């Protein structure tokens, strides 16, 4: 628990995360995520891979990959770049922990409040994302992450369970717009609609 007396707000501006259920789809705001970006310094690939794995318990994933164990998750965001996830409640100091192990092999930047995450779950999840982004989610297996544009916003979409559970990271300042886009699409697809497996 922090020592200070300041109370945080979620990205949607409330004390508690927002949960919406629309036609079999549940959209949940997930504020309990600490994020830190990890970028490889020039010529330090091996050192970064080794030191990061020592902390995270998994190897840094390849293109479009996600890996995780215990409190940590990590996904690829670009050549030599990854985003590390951990519960905010216990890992608010994630960047410090990460920097402590990777040292000069990597650049670490706090990203916890740069993003908002919405988890989307339900049998129409594919239909929902069909309305929102150009990704071919029907061919996206679990434990993968793709970057895309949703409602003009640069987002990461994580597949947690193919066809059913996804996470969408978008810019925190546009959380309300992203949430609105998700809700609108959910209402739009709320009737039964056949989609590709």
């Amino acid at each position, binding site marked *: 628990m922090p020592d200070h007396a300041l109370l945080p707000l979620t990205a949607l501006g409330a004390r508690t995360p927002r949960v919406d259920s629309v036609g079999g789809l549940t959209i949940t705001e997930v504020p309990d995520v600490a994020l830190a970006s990890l970028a490889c310094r020039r010529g330090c690939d091996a050192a970064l891979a080794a030191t990061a794995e020592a902390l995270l318990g998994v190897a840094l994933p390849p293109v479009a990959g996600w890996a995780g164990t215990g409190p940590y998750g990590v996904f690829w965001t670009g050549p030599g770049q990854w985003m590390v996830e951990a519960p905010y409640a216990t890992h608010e100091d994630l960047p410090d922990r990460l920097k402590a192990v990777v040292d000069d092999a990597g650049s670490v930047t706090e990203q916890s409040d*740069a993003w908002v995450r919405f988890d989307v779950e339900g049998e129409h999840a594919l239909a929902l994302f069909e309305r929102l982004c150009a990704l071919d989610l029907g061919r996206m297996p679990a434990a993968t992450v793709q970057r895309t544009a949703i409602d003009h916003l640069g987002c990461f979409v994580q597949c947690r369970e193919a066809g059913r559970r996804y996470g969408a990271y978008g810019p925190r300042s546009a959380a309300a717009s992203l949430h609105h886009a998700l809700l609108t699409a959910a209402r739009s697809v709320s009737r039964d609609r056949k989609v590709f497996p």
Partner: protein
Amino acid sequence: MSQTNRLAGGGLIDRSRVLTFTFDGRTYQGHPGDTLASALLANGVRLMGRSFKYHRPRGPLSAGSEEPNALVELRDGARREPNTRATTAELFDGLTARSQNRWPSLRFDALAVNDRLSTFLTAGFYYKTFMWPRSFWEKVYEPAIRKAAGLGRLSMQDDPDVYDKGFLHCDLLVIGAGPAGLAAALTAGRAGARVILADEDFRLGGRLNAETLTLDDAPAADWVAAILAELASLPTVRVMPRTTVVGAFDHGVYGAVERVADHLPVPEPGMPRQILWRIYSRRALLCAGATERPIAFADNDRPGILQAGALRAYANRWGAAVARRVAVFTNSDDGHRTARDLHAHGLEIAAVIDVRSDAPRSPDYEVLAGAQVVGTAGRLGLTGITVRTADGGTRKVSCGALGVSGGWNPAVHLTCHQGARPRWDAAIAAFVPGPDLPPGLAVAGAAAGTFSTAGALREGAAGALAALADLGVAATAPALPRAEDAPAGITAFWHVASDAGRAWLDQQNDVTVKDVKLAHQEGFRAVEHLKRYTTLGMATDQGKTSNMGALAIMAELTGKPIPEVGTTMFRPPYTPVALGTLAGRSRGDDFRPRRLTPTHAWAAEQGAVFVEVGTWMRAQYFPRPGETHWRQTVDREVLAVRSAVGVCDVTTLGKIDVQGTDAASFLDRIYCNGMAKLAVGRVRYGLMLREDGMAKDDGTAARLAEDHFVVTTTTANAVAVFRHMEFCRQCLWPDLDVQVISTTDAWAQIAVAGPRARDLLRRVVDPTTDLSNDAFPFMACAAVTVCGGLRARLFRISFSGELAYELAVPARYGDALVRALMAAGADLGVTPYGTEALGVLRIEKGHAAGNEINGQTTARMLGLGRMVSSKKDSIGAVLSRREALDGPVPLRLVGLRPVNPADPVVAGAHLLARGAPTTAASDEGWVTSAAFSPHVGSAIGLGFLAGGEGRIGEIVRAVDPLGGTDVAVEVVVPHFVDPDGEKLRA
């Protein structure tokens, strides 16, 4: 009596249910499965509209999306949609439609007087007539023409429906669900490929629905139903009825419009009315069929004259007769099929007029071989035709409907959307898809010029097999049913030569054979010129039933073969698309996403007025009770900052984290001024230039560690600067060890400005940080903690010219921080200020912002010329030293103050020397920014003035020709407060 022309049996309509609808206020009945056109015809209504130019009475020509005539205003109130094709509008209970382009009524239309004036209203009429007197154009001619132009009326209300967009992916996109499309989808679906089968109709089956054909000796409808049932059971097949593929784009991408709710009285809550799909296909097969073309002859536009194929479609699919006594005019065997079908339905066939002397005979009705229709009668609907028989005589034939068949045009449109041209096939006298198809697209069935049912089935299956083989998917051809396989017997025939009456080509735009002749006579012979001179092929139907006939006539006139005349360019969309569909969800407040600052909710609680700044919503000012004008509020906020302390959310300024062992070298190359030697714990103002030497953006760089900087940018250029840095890092200097990432959203950043700023911060920043001027001087920065331990960053920088800081905390704590600052500073007079006050403060201080760094200005113009370091290289540095860059008398940033304090200073006003004429030639600069300064007590401005640095004290004129102001202003140094910077260093 209701539905007088509904046939006794047959048709793919649900006769067990009755739907009630109105047309022009009169109530009618139809059945599920009807279109508005089929239901009206069943009720004996042939007259459905008036033509565009001559207001000629018109009925439907077709039974599909190619319809030029039967356009109506569908629905009421805000949902009223003009120019809707009655031939595709699906009937629902309570449907309301009105005819359009007529006054006072459809039967009696006053503007039909145009028809009497048709001799004068030929092609090119406007261009020739409205040239004189010139002054009449804007005031008289144009308003009058605009009033007369157009067909339907907009509701002028907001569209209450919602629209959506989406993205689909497939191995094979099958466009059209006739026999070819169904065979293709079945073949690919059984192989496990991802298939999308899209058809514009609400009932799949294509022409099979309109014919009396059998497949394997059973009605075609049975086969269609069985195939659709199987397709529905295949997990990788997506069947999309009511979906028109409207465009073929690059890389196998197709645009499609799905009409989700157009067949419902009102969409269900949340349900989009239409969806614009972007379909990413690996392969596509066009099975869009063909469109029947009419033959032009005198007065061939009367209600009751239809495509022969449409006539039998209305009978076979909808059980509707256009009239009880019918004639057919044809140049092919296909016209005879219409006669046979209608005869089988019990209708009387008055005659079949076939231009071919060897026309097939019939035991059931008279066939006039080698004959032509040369005239028609009936003011509001056909009553009879005049036939010129093979022996040269004429004969009157009484009939209420005439089916015309001039052959079929394959629907080649999508094959040409990327610039390809179709190929002429003399065997069917039509254009077929050319060899240069869009990559990944193949064509099957009637769209490829194969008109028999067996041929369509065969080509559909083969097309799918070929596409799958390309993709490496194993597939086998399905067993196809036995079907008719008759060759197309046709003799090319385009128009009946006659001097009497007008022979209509484009019924939507009232273009006649004579108009084409006139275009030829006046030299508009290329098809694209012909189109624009006569308006042929324009408007909602894009000439689907008319272009072919017109260019055949042009070929005759020019003595060229038809393929040499060619076609006009086919462009998307294939059929009209509502603007709402193109907009999708992006309209009104949802036009684009909005970014909210971390203190947005708090600012809203304070009653802030917000303003859009790019995509951000920022607090513009915070009115208090009793303040009746925004200026009162802004003046108060400005004075509070100058006299006590103010707080302002500046999160929107871009923040970029720059790390790496070469981070300092990197910034040295990005900024024109030196950054490499900036000490850790210090901030420096930086200016970056474009490659051409012009100013690009400004901001600050704070060095948090040897290998770690935080760079700020302007709000407007946050993304552009980040992109620029990524480009430089990846492409220009990949050898540098530097990593960049945006942290704009991650940190809530609050400006704390004013002489009491330090006092306030001492109450918030934890005492472990010494904020004294010695320990934390101007341009210092540090990682600190606030409010008992929250990590934060503190920068002592000033935009206002006051003692000022910017304090950043993780964004989730931004709201709590501003509340803490307001609570802690109550006795210090802490005042929230918005962007308006921010602007006034920076103008008073003479800080350049977006108005000054607008892409047209240089470092020297901004008074920052000496910042461009000569000790190192940086982007734009060399070109910024071009001698001619600033011109012979360089513009310089100056301050401007009105001689009369009551006068306004207007941004955008031009600066002219006193006594100079108010002309562009006398222009000496312009006012970039202006505000009322409560500190100065008058309006003030910043601006660029030729030779400005040497003209301090001079009086010049600020002239705003648009607003009509001409104000004497004194040129002053651009620092209205604290020119020596003592306050910000205090």
